[in-house]
């Protein structure tokens, strides 16, 4: 479970996120929507402990990420907006490094690395240097490192960006299969992705949470409108506020 309590971030006087409160329960796949610069990435960075909030708390499975960073971070798999990869390393060495830091050693490490390599479809490139990989493969390596250690919480910042249509379908079904026990937050600009993968949505604009809830509930509120209509109306409403 992920809980954001009054999360606020200011860079100097510039507001990135203002008073964002939401609760994402186990088994939820939440689509995080909003225009560019709305504060999606900043929110995700606060939830993963990369960014320190100006105010408010981010709580992962009951652990405050600022107060108990090590325990909380162990529960999170995070794919940042730009996949964080070391171009000099081979895919397998990179995944081994992340696995070790996540506390996996020996046989378990080997099994986990093999598992994520097959889940992300990296078998063919496992021994290639990341520098030589295509954009799609790099994105998949980024997803694979997030899946290592089978974290209870997955935070994915635009996971399907840069992928070709076939890869997009594969990664979407992978993310969908991750639901169940886990809590997943994924940000995206593709509304169709939200309909096919997510069961809840959060819409954010200018740093404020405008709409939040199960997709059907939100749709009912808007008189069974399509996601596009809801998005546009929420964004324009948020702009006025």
């Amino acid at each position: 479970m992920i809980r954001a309590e009054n999360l606020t971030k200011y860079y100097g006087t510039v507001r990135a996120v203002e008073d964002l409160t939401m609760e994402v329960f186990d088994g939820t796949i939440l689509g995080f929507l909003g225009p560019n610069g709305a504060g999606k990435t900043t929110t995700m960075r606060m939830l993963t402990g990369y960014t320190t909030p100006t105010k408010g708390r981010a709580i992962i499975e009951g652990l405050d990420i600022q107060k108990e960073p090590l325990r909380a971070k162990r529960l999170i798999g995070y794919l940042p907006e730009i996949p964080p990869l070391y171009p000099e390393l081979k895919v397998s060495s990179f995944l081994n490094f992340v696995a070790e830091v996540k506390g996996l050693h020996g046989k378990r490490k080997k099994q986990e690395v093999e598992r994520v390599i097959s889940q992300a479809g990296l078998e063919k490139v496992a021994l290639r240097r990341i520098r030589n990989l295509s954009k799609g493969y790099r994105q998949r390596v980024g997803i694979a490192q997030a899946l290592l250690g089978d974290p209870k919480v997955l935070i994915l910042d635009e996971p399907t960006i840069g992928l070709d249509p076939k890869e997009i379908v594969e990664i979407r079904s992978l993310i969908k299969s991750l639901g169940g026990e886990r809590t997943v937050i994924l940000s995206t600009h593709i509304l169709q992705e939200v309909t096919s993968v997510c069961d809840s949505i959060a819409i954010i604009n200018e740093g404020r949470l405008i709409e939040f809830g199960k997709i059907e509930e939100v749709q009912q509120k808007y008189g069974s409108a399509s996601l596009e209509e809801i998005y546009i109306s929420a964004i324009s409403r948020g702009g006025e506020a």
Partner: protein
Amino acid sequence: MRNMWAIAKKELKIYFSSPTAYIVISLFLLLAGFMYYVIISNFSLLSLRAGNNPYFSSHLSLNQSVYIPFFSNAAVVLLLLLPILTMRLFAEEKRQRTEELLFTLPLTNTQIIIGKYIAAVVVLTVMLVATAPYVFYPFFITKPELAPVLTGYLGLFLLGASFISFGLFASSLTENQIVAAVFSFAILLLLWLIYWLTYVTSSMGGFLRFISFFGHFDNLSKGVVDTADLAYYVSFTLVGLFLTYAVLEVRRWWR
């Protein structure tokens, strides 16, 4: 412990799968080898000339005329090259945006810093060990004193380890590797030469000599092991690591 080692291993893999480590190690060997060659050739000419002068030849010492100048020259080469080794350690994480991974993995800042520090120290050790074949070669021919040679190496190691801790700090300040290298090189050079001030001012002479690298290294290359010198290097390293830690903590608020 394991996490530190995981970081160190990752850094070493990057060092040895990019040209950095190879370039730094081979340039060090080239420069140090060249200096050693000139110094020892000069010494052998000197011994040849001294052959028919028993007083002069009894005063010739391999330790005095070869090892001491060699170690102080090698120290200067370290000053030149170690900033190149350390410049990428944090700057590149920032530029490649991999720090977003590093700082969201279950790692403490201390583990990250020490892991990176260890990796650079391992490369330094490789550099120093690689000079051993020619440095110890004269031991097969004649009998120089061993102890000053070993303390000379200890001096180079401690000096290099201090340079690395400062280079790590410089790298944590910027995302530009060149800026990191130039900054650490300039500050280390200044710290080396700060004892020059004693030529022009009489006050603070003792203090200036104490904070300069120069005097402390001199003792060790002569075979004098003074705990004050060892303490100096250890404190210098700790200060460098602590400054790096402070930068990481402060930067947390800016991301």
